[in-house]
């Protein structure tokens, strides 16, 4: 199985109080559980069901994702720069898979 390689686009630095954009994408087929294979058996659901962004110690954005989100789920959201520190992006998959990325942000 190919391990999905998520990617994010985040600025390296921001002014204190500034709101910056984050673009997050993970390659994933988002199998809905509604499709059948050639033998007529249902293809089990396997989707990214949750995305979380932590900034320092706090969760500052989250998304509960259901079957109607497109394959290769893409989320663009907006964060206020408070302190220099790490941003952690976490994708959770059906069956317990967890994929993470970390980014260091400098706030001046």
């Amino acid at each position: 199985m190919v391990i999905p390689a998520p990617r994010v686009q985040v600025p390296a630095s921001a002014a204190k109080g500034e709101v910056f954009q984050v673009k997050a994408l993970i390659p994933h087929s988002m199998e809905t559980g509604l499709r059948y294979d050639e033998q007529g058996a249902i293809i089990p659901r396997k989707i990214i069901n949750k995305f979380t962004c932590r900034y320092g110690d706090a969760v500052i954005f989250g998304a509960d994702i259901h079957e109607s989100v497109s394959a290769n789920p893409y989320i663009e959201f907006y964060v206020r720069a408070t302190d220099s520190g790490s941003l952690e992006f976490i994708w959770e998959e059906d069956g317990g898979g967890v994929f993470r990325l970390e980014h260091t942000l400098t706030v001046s």
Partner: protein
Amino acid sequence: MSMVESTRAILSSRRKLLITAAACSTAVLLPRGVRANDDAIGPVELITRLTGKTPAWSDRVRLDMPRVFPNGYSVPLALAIDSAMTEAEHVRRARVFAPRNPLIEVAAFQFIPQRSEPRVSTRIRLAEPQYVLAVAEMNDGSLLLNKAWVEVSSNGCK
């Protein structure tokens, strides 16, 4: 009771049961042929049944989607809610529903006052032309609702 009437009665109670079941589960599943926005159930009624609260239509919720889009597999969606995002006044969560999809709940986004803005973009699947609904849950418990009509020409849920 005629055959037609009894079938209607069964369908009607089955629908109520399914909607109640849907409201209780995290994955909102309405089987094919039983649709939450059958003419009898409008968006306000649907959201009321799903959440237990009556939403109010509001222009503070802005749901931007293309009116016409060829590909139902990946329809752009942009959602923004007017809010100061202070401790006293903020959006807790925004939910998106596609009532004519086989699974109507699309996504829910959580925002934190002073840390994230109530604004998000993503891409969603749509099975057929329909009104997509966005509901903002405010910190005082109120629900604000808005909708966007999208005409897709291919079924993104197959």
